[in-house]
């Protein structure tokens, strides 16, 4: 995948993820998130049937979508997409906690913390100085997560890949959908 472009993204490669959950807990610890609030989740996705059953991994957080559905859904215009780096940011002073963003997001990203305003992954700008990557990326033993800058069209491809993975999950025979159905 190219690494030039101003759409920042923590890209995920399911072929390199061992579901150790290090990223999920690194995120929770470094961002001091309370119980129940998760900026990043590690999912196990089932396909097929015994004995030809397969499991695939997905470490999921905000993709900072090219066209963010959360921003479009927000009645208070509290969510904006930055032109310079592609980041989708929430202004907690404007957020009224209506959860329309959560209903709009295909990936189940928006979380509601102690103030009941929307919180989510912001790519840890304060932690990725001096060449260090965000804690979730730093801690991954398989380098399944990488912080990259890509073009809009490349990011759209990545969004589609994640949608495909999530669809597998929602079709599986055991789970209640963890994200919106497709």
């Amino acid at each position: 995948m190219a690494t030039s472009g101003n759409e920042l993204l923590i890209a995920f490669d399911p072929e390199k993820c061992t579901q150790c959950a290090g990223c999920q807990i690194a995120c929770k610890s470094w961002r001091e998130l309370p119980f129940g609030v998760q900026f990043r989740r590690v999912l196990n996705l089932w396909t097929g049937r015994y004995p030809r059953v397969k499991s695939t991994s997905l470490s999921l957080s905000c993709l900072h979508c090219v066209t963010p559905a959360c921003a479009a859904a927000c009645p208070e215009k509290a969510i904006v997409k930055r032109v310079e780096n592609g980041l989708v940011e929430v202004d907690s002073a404007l957020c009224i906690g209506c959860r329309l963003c959560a209903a709009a997001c295909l990936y189940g990203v928006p979380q509601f913390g102690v103030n009941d305003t929307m919180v989510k992954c912001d790519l840890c700008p304060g932690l990725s100085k001096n060449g260090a990557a965000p804690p979730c990326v730093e801690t991954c033993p398989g380098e399944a997560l990488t912080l990259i800058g890509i073009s809009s069209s490349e990011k759209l491809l990545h969004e589609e890949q994640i949608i495909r993975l999530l669809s597998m999950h929602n079709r599986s025979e055991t789970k209640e959908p963890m994200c919106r159905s497709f």
Partner: protein
Amino acid sequence: MNYQQAYHLARTNGEEIVPTVCGMCGPGGPGGGCGIYAFVKNGRFTKVAGMDESPVNKGAICAKGHAAPQWVYSADRLTHPLRRIGKKGEGKFEKISWDEAIAHIAEKLRQQKTIYGPESLAILAPAKRSYNDYLKRFLTAHGSPNYGHSGICAMQRAFAFTYTLGDYPRPDYDQSDMIIYWGRQPIYSGPVARPARAFLAAKRRGAKIIAIKPSVEPDVGMADTWIPVRPGTDAALALAMLNVVIGEDLVDHAFIEKWCYGFNRLKVHVRQFTPQWAEKICGVSPDQIKEIAYLYATTPRATIDLGNGVEHSPSSSDAIRAVALLMAVTGHLDRPGANLFIAPPKNAPRDISLKKRYSKALLAKLVGPEFPIAFQPFLEGLSSAYYRIFESVLSEKPYPVRTIIAPGTQPSVSTRGTKQVIAALQKLDFFVVVDVARTADMPYADIVIPVATGYEVNHPFQMVPGWLMATRKVIEPVGEGKSIFQFFLDLGVAMGYGEDFWDGDIETAMDDQLAPLGMDMQGLRLQPTGVNYQQTDHVFEKYAKVFNQSSPRLGFPAYLPQGKVALYNTSFEAAGFSPLPRWHEPPESFSGTPELAQQYPLILADYHTSKNFSASWQRNVPLLREIQSEPVLHIHPNAASTRQIKDGDWIKVKSPHGWLKVKAELYPGIRPDTVMILHGWWQGCKELGIDDYPLLDGGANVNNMYSVDPARAYDPLVTAMTSQTLVQVKKWEVA
């Protein structure tokens, strides 16, 4: 991140960093040794980053490692020495001082030594930790051989391998074209990075990956082939693979001719173990057995990574020996991409376990030998099996152990037979718990010793192949506890063994161990990210050397009397055991007890490792509990639907020995005839308002479910207690 990055990040945020070793795989120093940067703000331990410079984890760190600050400051931390004032099991204690606690234990041990002899003391070994040699040292100084090793971990493989092959053959992940992960969890077992990275690199290289285990874990999800074997039946599968490999003449005749003893007898012996025979036991189709046997034998660079999963059945030693024989007859030993004999590291710290004082007289006092007397001591020294120590308390045979010290281990949730263990704890004269946080058995303790974690003390050093690193104090101890090392030093001095215990000075003890490395603790601490050692290049086909290696028995006779692979094992035969691997049924199974299977139609086994908990610990850590809040039983959707069980329902799981109340997780990646649960559930989480679960019936402690029948539950050669039974599963009905 690296040192500079950590340093600058900390400075930006008004924090400090302490480069040290992760302490989450065990109290007072794990065996794993992942390097970390601990972040400290205003004297409080706040966060962890993996250390790039550590060759163990290379910057990665697992979920447990990140949760360390919550564990250190947990509401369940033990902060004061305690003396029991209520009845056993009641949990009433009074605070006492460290010195009072040491004096109390020493007085009791002195009394018992005089009346019953020093062997009346047993110390239970936790998983392999950096302090285990201190337990052995104390026991030997005291005069007891009763080091209580689990009987279900690592040494079982080591024993069957060394007495068959002269060494424990390690998989050559880096060069193999085919890796069989057999009863093995390469992701969560031990330090996160090394085996996980080797697994991913092999996959990227295009190596064929085969996983043999009853359920799909993440490694199986990435494997090319899954062999869903029934729990506890690996020996039948391995014997049938031998049948195919030898029957179809897929063997390395030149290697057998030169380096193996007893091939013709093995050839005749394995004729009975046809794939059709094995299918009835292990549930794997004859075609699949033939396919993997053929693939393994005909792939020159093929390796087997045999895991802890094969160490939990009465046929454990047979399984391991049969796998060893598979490696040997196909010539997959010490060749590129196969299983390698790794030379011991040139640089090693001093062994302080006092093994030189072992004698026939000491050996004869073992209360419940983990390995037969004829094969003691083994690699970790003299050992009694953990559970057999409790058995001795109840049966008083050959004599009752009077004092048990449990440093970093919880018998009522760690070993089988919880009802018997608790009965033994009720009856036991004196029980000492030494741990970081509240333990399951603490209500039965006479004295409780609080332990400082590795984040609160300046020792020990950690040595793993290629790396030596100092443990550094991150914060001041949160309570009055000292390290587990200091506990044994202080007790040693109080017992009058001061000369053997460096007169109580921990720094001298560490320096003594480091001396052969030309290093001391002060010097080591000057190296922020430790010292790296060059690892020697591997020399292949060292058969003449390895097949003549000395065993650790008294007088050091060779493992292999013929100087060849023991296909037919004359040492075992001479000691009264089978010279060839055979099949022993578990106490309860479809093929062994079909009548019982009518009433209990599913097989139950348990997982021994998880991504978020270390054995029976750390359920009290909110960050880790959030990943998995409640104990769940993995059950196939078909098995669940016939019982009207839905995902998340509470269920009752009943075996002939006990019952559990847990939740169902519908799990497509498990044999439909098998259900599995993680072991070690008992502890609540005060921070999240979750209560403890009962240790016995109605709780979630899987060890309460298994047979401990001395005639059927043990492997006769290596102990290996069964962790497999038959169960019925029903939806929980509210009364």
